[in-house]
């Protein structure tokens, strides 16, 4: 029983990580109508930034978070300027190929600079806390808390700020936005940087739990984000949170009952089943895009 509770708690915390990564991807899809196949690479960049800050610069963990996010933002800005802005209105094939290209460049540059070996991330708060007999690492609680804060912040931003309103407007109709004078390029750029910064942020948040840091780590995150954003309904922020929790808990239960090697298959089987039966997501009755 406690075992099951622990598994569910761990599932919720990995779900929280997926949620923070996936919400960025789904928002980027909303404004660009393009799947960002490089999204996991920003998670990797954030993690590498945090790892570099703690192990090479000797910064404390909170400062490492800031450093990692800052590095992610700078790289995202450059990619946004040179690649993402050109993708507005481009055909689907072009955006798939372009983001695959970005993914290759980022991933292999990291391997080239830092080497292909696994690195050890030693900072963070990994001592467990106990609620009765159920133990959970402090870091996992922190992740869940941060996830709640991030989603509250996003809800407020999308609902009430001018930026949030323009993001919603662009995701509904790009031409109409241009007619009324919304700077579509700027909105795309802001959404892209916000989304990738969230991915980088969640990378550093999970690093103490995952411990290992390596260049190819972003790929699996991209692959897990795809089923989540499809389940949540592409472009749907709240749906993404729910879908991420479902995947996180399902993975945790599968890992606990069938073995760790089957954990990563859950996502892609979910993706294919979703695409076949409910391509518009679990929570909406018809496709938005």
């Amino acid at each position: 029983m406690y075992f099951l509770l622990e598994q569910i708690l761990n599932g919720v915390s990995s779900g929280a990580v997926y949620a923070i990564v996936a919400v960025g991807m789904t928002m980027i899809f909303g404004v660009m109508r393009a799947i960002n196949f490089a999204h996991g690479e920003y998670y990797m960049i954030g993690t590498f930034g945090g790892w570099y800050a703690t192990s090479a610069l000797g910064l404390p963990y909170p400062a490492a978070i800031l450093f990692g996010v800052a590095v992610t933002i700078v790289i995202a800005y450059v990619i946004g300027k040179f690649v993402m802005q050109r993708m507005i209105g481009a055909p689907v094939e072009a955006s798939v190929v372009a983001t695959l290209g970005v993914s290759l460049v980022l991933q292999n540059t990291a391997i080239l600079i830092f080497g292909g070996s696994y690195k050890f991330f030693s900072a963070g708060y990994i001592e467990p806390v106990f609620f009765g007999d159920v133990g959970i690492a402090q870091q996992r609680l922190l992740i869940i808390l941060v996830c709640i804060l991030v989603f509250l912040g996003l809800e407020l931003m999308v609902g009430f700020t001018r930026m949030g309103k323009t993001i919603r407007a662009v995701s509904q109709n790009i031409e109409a936005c241009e007619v009324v004078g919304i700077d579509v390029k700027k909105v795309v750029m802001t959404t892209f940087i916000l989304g990738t910064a969230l991915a980088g942020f969640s990378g550093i948040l999970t690093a103490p739990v995952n411990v290992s840091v390596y260049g190819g780590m972003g790929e699996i995150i991209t692959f897990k984000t795809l089923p989540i954003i499809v389940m949540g309904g592409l472009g749907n922020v709240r749906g993404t949170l729910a879908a991420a929790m479902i995947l996180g808990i399902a993975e945790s239960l599968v890992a606990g009952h069938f073995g760790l090697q089957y954990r990563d298959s859950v996502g892609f089987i979910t993706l294919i089943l979703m695409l076949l039966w409910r391509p518009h997501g679990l929570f909406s009755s018809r496709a938005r895009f």
Partner: protein
Amino acid sequence: MNNTPLSTTASDPKRRNLRAPIVIALAVVALGAPMVLGTYAVHAMVIALIFLLPAHGLNLLVGYTGMLSLAQAAFFGLGAYASALMSIHLGTSFPVNMLAAIALACVIAVPLGIPALRLRDTSFVMCTLGFVIIGQAISKNWISVTRGDMGLNNIDKPTVGLAGYSWTASNPVEAYYLALVLAAFATWVFWLVVRSPAGRNLVAIRENETLAESLGIPTWNYRLAAFVIAAGFGGAGGSLYVHYISVASPLMFQTLYTTTMLIIVLGGGAGSITGVIFGSFLFVALSEGLRIAPELRMIAYGLSLLILVFRFPQGFAPFLMRIWDWAGGVDKKEGSA
């Protein structure tokens, strides 16, 4: 790519008539290259020839039918594993294995294609990517058959037997000629497919599916057929590859293979046979031959993809067409366009 009949204008004294010499020169280069090049360069050319097979399949999907599929690497891996397992457990020879790999890839493509082809655009891309990931998961976890991450080793070099006489491609030079024959045969088959009325119907589907359907073309059947044929090309490539490098491992389902096929087709020019052949040599043989570190090569691939998509969406095909037109044109500026 011989669209313009030469015979009608051959009597024109101003014509350059360089097309036949170019074709002959390329044929001589293709046949004579292994005698001049070193072993490693020949190996690089073998890899390029092998990758031409799945690239033809991908070209059929991307260039002729207008579907961006990432599943080609899954069928490549499937063909490789099928061949390897047959070679190890049944001891069958290379031609049997290759035919079996093609047949298996085609058969498996049907149940995969039926659901996948219902999807469009991004969803189709994600679904086909899913097939590769599932292939990788199976090859890693079905340890009793695939030996997991250790892979299958010591697969026989390709042996071709005919009427009691058998010949084994045991070194890169021999493998080169085998791959050259198979790649040429595959190119001929591919040419037959795309030049047939069926091939023209595929192009019609690419250009406007609704209009094609209204003209009575059963678009669904054609798209499924294209997916299955492409899978067959992928399986053939995988079979040849595994017999050449003699190892099958889950690494075959890596992004590297998908990307390589993608860059051959997009770089060479989707919808152009010569373009894809050119792309295969340019991107695979060159990068393999220069022995660049794998990371640098991946970075170069990534940058090439970006440049191709935004600057040369048609790849090198228009450039090749210009040379071809120049070669068959007249000296003055009134050359055919």
